[in-house]
């Protein structure tokens, strides 16, 4: 049994005054996420990530296909009790305090009355909102709302957690904390499905990632395998005013400005390039990796022309 499974799930919005114009938000999507997996959903703005999550939550109705969570139809109340959802840029009843909101949601999710208060206090502590527990949400900052959003998503101890851009709006400490929190969820054996633009987070956290672009799945696979298939790049800067001869054969892009030269070249050629510099007695100023290999993979998938996704599992 898969934790999350979509079968030809698709969505076309009708737009325009007469709702005649179709806008394809998601082409038939087939995806299966194992239980206990942390799955990253990557794609540029407008790719269809949020649409997919809303379809999975039953907030918008699919124009075709179906989705199953924990082997059951997404509309069953039993399933809904097992999932948690953080929408993108979450907004809540602003006349409630953080604590009241969590209380209300705990009730709706059917958390046992005797566990309720304890769970809510622990959760507020965990997302760093203990001091603001009795402040009305209309007085919350964006990042604080994001924290409330995280709290409400995992409050009822769901088995599958869906997070739409969990890091957005958070300060560096907040991001770190969310990463730790997601690690913790993984330790507890929960399935986490999250969308993000931050590839380093995806690389650090995910077992598998999928890349979608223009509503179409462009690639899916284990992070380790994807990054093995594409190499990253490094940037080298050294003193000099002419590009040494050997560099053209390394696939490097060089730019000269004043008496420094900047070259971007594949990670694999790094040693060869350093060797040339040493031989020519040129002084290296810096050497930095510019793109992680996941980023390279992502850009490759997003920039490639539309074609059926190669499934690498």
């Amino acid at each position, binding site marked *: 049994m898969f934790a999350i499974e979509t079968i030809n799930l698709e969505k076309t*919005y009708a737009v325009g005054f007469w709702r005649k114009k179709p806008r394809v938000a998601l082409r038939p999507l087939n995806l299966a996420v194992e239980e206990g997996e942390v799955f990253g959903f990557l794609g540029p703005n407008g790719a269809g990530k949020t649409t997919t999550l*809303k379809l999975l*939550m*039953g*907030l*918008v*109705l699919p124009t075709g296909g179906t989705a199953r969570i924990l082997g059951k139809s997404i509309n069953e*109340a*039993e399933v*809904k*009790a097992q*999932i*948690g*959802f953080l*929408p993108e840029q*979450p*907004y*809540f*009843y602003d*006349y*409630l305090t953080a604590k009241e909101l969590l209380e*209300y*949601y705990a*009730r*709706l*999710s*059917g958390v046992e009355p005797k566990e309720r208060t304890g769970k809510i206090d622990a959760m507020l502590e965990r997302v760093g909102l203990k001091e603001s527990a009795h402040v009305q949400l209309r007085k919350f900052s964006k990042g604080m709302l994001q924290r409330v*959003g995280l709290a*409400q*998503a995992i409050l009822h101890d769901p088995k599958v957690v*869906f997070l739409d851009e969990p890091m957005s709006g958070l300060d560096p400490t907040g991001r770190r904390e969310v990463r730790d929190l997601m690690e913790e969820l993984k330790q507890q054996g929960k399935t986490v499905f999250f969308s993000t633009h931050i590839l380093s987070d995806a690389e650090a956290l995910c077992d598998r990632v999928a890349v979608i672009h223009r509503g179409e799945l462009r690639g899916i696979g284990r992070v380790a395998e994807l990054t093995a298939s594409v190499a990253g790049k490094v940037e080298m800067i050294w003193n000099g005013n002419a590009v040494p001869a050997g560099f053209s054969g390394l696939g490097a892009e060089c730019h000269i400005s004043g008496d420094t030269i900047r070259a971007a070249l594949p990670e694999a050629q790094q040693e060869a390039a350093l060797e040339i510099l040493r031989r020519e007695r040129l002084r290296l100023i810096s050497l930095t990796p510019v793109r992680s290999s996941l980023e390279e993979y992502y850009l490759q998938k997003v920039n490639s022309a539309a074609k059926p996704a190669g499934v690498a599992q």
Partner: protein
Amino acid sequence: MSRVVHIASNTFREAVRDRVLYNLVAFAVLLSGAAILVGQISIDIERLVVVNLGLTAVSLFGVVIAIFIGIGLVSKEIEKRTLYTVLSRPVRRWEFIVGKFFGLTGTLVVNTVCMAIGVFAALLYVSHKFQASDRWILVALYFIVLQFLILCSLTLLFSSFSSPLLSAVFAFSLFVIGSFAEDLRGFAGMSHGLTQGLATGAAYLVPNFSALNVIGQVAHEQAISGRLIAYNTGYALAYSAMAICGAVLIFERRNLK
């Protein structure tokens, strides 16, 4: 079922925190001002004036609240996206609609009870005692609550598919037209042929608020028949149940923005 109760009580809490009940202050000022004024100038018609004015104010204040809150109940939650984290929980869409309905009618009932106490206090002030026919005032208040039931279900119905402004226009027009429902039925009976069919259909489709308005009668201390009470109760329950069903059917098929 308990989820309906949670949603209803949260809706009530929202109304209270949005200071909706502050309208009671305006009501109290209006009513006590009127009571003091008629107490000074008129002979024998104090009761008539206080009952008429009091009950009309109860009705109008309630209608305004029902429309103002009702039009936003669903559309505001969709607009602000507060619904996402509610409907991704084990809450069915019909439970949300029904919960909202009871939350709003609950708010109106509380509001009406407070106002009713005010009306009786004003009555006591001008005529120094209660009399047997005052019980018909209770019936008139009950009918006003039945009006609110219908109006809430209608605003909820409109709110489930149109913008707040349009919902307000629809609901208010229906309230005005419905207040002349009996006249409409009369006119319809006088026309002929196809027009008669259409006019009769329209006259019976709009909510019959005129049968629910007995303020004039009770102000003149006339009795209200048991038959009318039974008819109005059945009518209001059936009408609002149908409107709620309509709202649920529409809302079940909606994509959230």
